[in-house]
């Protein structure tokens, strides 16, 4: 583990985000806490709807204000401030400059009626004092950094003229052009071909090392996590249920859900031939009807009455955290 003297660049404590719906208030992110250290890649993993995207958008305060709110006591500590309580003006200074975010669908995430150059220029214009010529230079430099072929030409092109992989590179360039401390990447490769996926992940890894940016990588794909993450946090139905280093999680998962997730990754090889792909029975509980006890109980293969009655607390265990009454221990 890293030396304990290193301070986290981001610390989230007891973050809870709620939405107002016509069926009542629902809590999408429930008492989530974690730390992010400089230069590391933290993976946030879970099924659709588990709250991982909402967590990241809550940090950036990008959720619609009239429909959502963070519960009192939520703390998002960054640069000496609690972003949960910061004003909109203060947030705007942070966004794009100190914390940047890229999204899943590069085609719809880029504005179709402005050129790539214009959109890069915009980000630079908000957060730097460079003049027009300098901004253009920097834009081209950023495009080169993300390994975009013919950057001078791309500057004048529109998003629909680029391929999926190229668009995502533009998104990354836009996000990193002001050299932020943190890059939040929300499913950055999900919409891309597998081969392009690998390139983008490599790119992100390389950039991270060069710029010492911390990355929060949100994904449902454990394969991606294995490739690029240092630490992992597993979420389920709005809760953190396990976290630890990638090595620990993959080799000795403690929570039954994590174990089942890992087992359901398709593997190749002679031994796997003819076997059924393991899946997890059942579905995620609706956020409107959460059980009192453990949220994973109805799909879990172990556990007893205790799991139905009382929800387990997140406990530290062997240098990591698990939320389970019956963590798996060393058994595989």
């Amino acid at each position: 583990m890293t030396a304990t003297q290193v301070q986290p660049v981001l610390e989230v404590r007891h973050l809870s985000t709620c939405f107002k719906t016509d069926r009542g208030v629902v809590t999408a992110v429930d008492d989530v806490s974690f730390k992010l250290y400089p230069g590391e890649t933290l993976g946030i993993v879970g099924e659709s709807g588990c709250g991982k995207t909402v967590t990241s958008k809550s940090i950036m305060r990008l959720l619609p204000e009239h429909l959502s709110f963070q519960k009192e006591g939520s703390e998002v500590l960054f640069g000496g401030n609690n972003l949960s309580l910061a004003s909109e003006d203060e947030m705007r200074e942070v966004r794009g400059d100190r914390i940047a975010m890229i999204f899943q669908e590069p085609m719809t995430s880029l504005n179709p009626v402005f050129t790539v150059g214009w959109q890069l220029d915009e980000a630079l214009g908000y957060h730097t004092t460079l003049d027009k010529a300098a901004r253009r230079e920097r834009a081209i430099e950023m495009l080169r950094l993300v390994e975009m072929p013919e950057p001078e030409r791309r500057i004048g092109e529109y998003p629909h003229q680029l391929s999926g992989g190229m668009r995502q590179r533009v998104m990354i360039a836009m996000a990193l052009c002001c050299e932020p401390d943190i890059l939040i990447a929300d499913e950055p490769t999900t919409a891309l071909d597998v081969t392009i996926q690998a390139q983008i992940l490599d790119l992100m890894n390389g950039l991270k090392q060069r710029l010492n940016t911390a990355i929060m990588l949100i994904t449902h794909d454990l394969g991606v996590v294995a490739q690029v993450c240092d630490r992992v946090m597993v979420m389920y139905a709005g809760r953190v249920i396990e976290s630890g280093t990638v090595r620990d999680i993959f080799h000795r998962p403690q929570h039954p859900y994590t174990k089942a997730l890992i087992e359901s990754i398709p593997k190749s090889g002679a031994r796997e031939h003819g076997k059924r792909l393991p899946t997890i029975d059942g579905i995620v509980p609706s956020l409107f009807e959460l059980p009192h006890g453990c949220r994973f109980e109805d799909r879990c293969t172990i556990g007893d009455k205790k799991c139905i009655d009382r929800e387990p607390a997140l406990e530290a265990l062997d240098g990591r955290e698990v939320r389970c009454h019956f963590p798996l221990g060393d058994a595989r």
Partner: protein
Amino acid sequence: MWSYIARKLLYNIPVYLGILLFLMLALRVNDPVHAFLGKNATDADILDVRAKLGLDQAFIYQYFDLLRDVLTLDFSVESWTNEGLRVSDMLKRSVIPSISITVPALVLTSIISISIALISAFFRGRPIDRTLMVMAVVGMSVSFLVYIIFGQYWGAYLLTREGSDLFAIGGFEPGLANWPYYCLLPVLISTFVATGYDTRFYRAVMVEESSRDYITTAKAKGANRRKVMFVHMLKNALIPIITRIMTTLPFLIMGSLLLEVYFNIPGMGRVLYKAIQEQDFPVVQIFVAVFAGIFIVSNILTDVLYALVDPRVRLS
């Protein structure tokens, strides 16, 4: 881009030919000569009128004659009810009155509805948005005619009775100085009615645009609310807005028929209305053919403008 325009032109030609076909058939369901001359016409009269307009020829010849007239803009045929008056003159004279109402109405309506829509979208879900939308829906549930009746009553009639002759009860005279007196009231009424519909549409466009992913990206880059709305969103929203405005263009020239009839303004709509009432066949035929032609041309122009505004279309 040019192939795009060529395709649009090619596509619209059969449409126009179709319009002419239906129009001519519809007008000949009841023999126009009989309808016009009435029961007491002598056979000689009938034959005479028929021959003058070529109605004694086979339909296919009539069709091509009309087509040729329209394409060469030759409207020198005479009206039946107004002896000696050529349809081309009638057309020319009626354009200005029509435009005097519709163009200012369009400008005013667009400015007001886009502004209201922006406010509504900006404060989406809050009381002011809800109020504006409720007003729009209720306003849309009342007939245009009712607005005209009350508009004329309050704007012209009441005010005149109390001595201030601000608006005419009807009629028209050309000239900029005369415009407010004759035209402002109909324009205001027209704006009042159209704003409800347009605002809802523009608001929907803006709300839809504001929920797009690139708006989130813009905010994530640090854009403030004003920048997001007026730069990112507006430019995208302009595409459907412009398209909508363009589709109302043909109606600009053709005038608001109801207003013209009610306020006795001699625009294209009223001329056509009277012609239909009086069974003035040549006028009806030419006017509708011209209307349809204007419509087709403006369709093509809309498509071209669309291509200019949306880079995705322009560069494909």
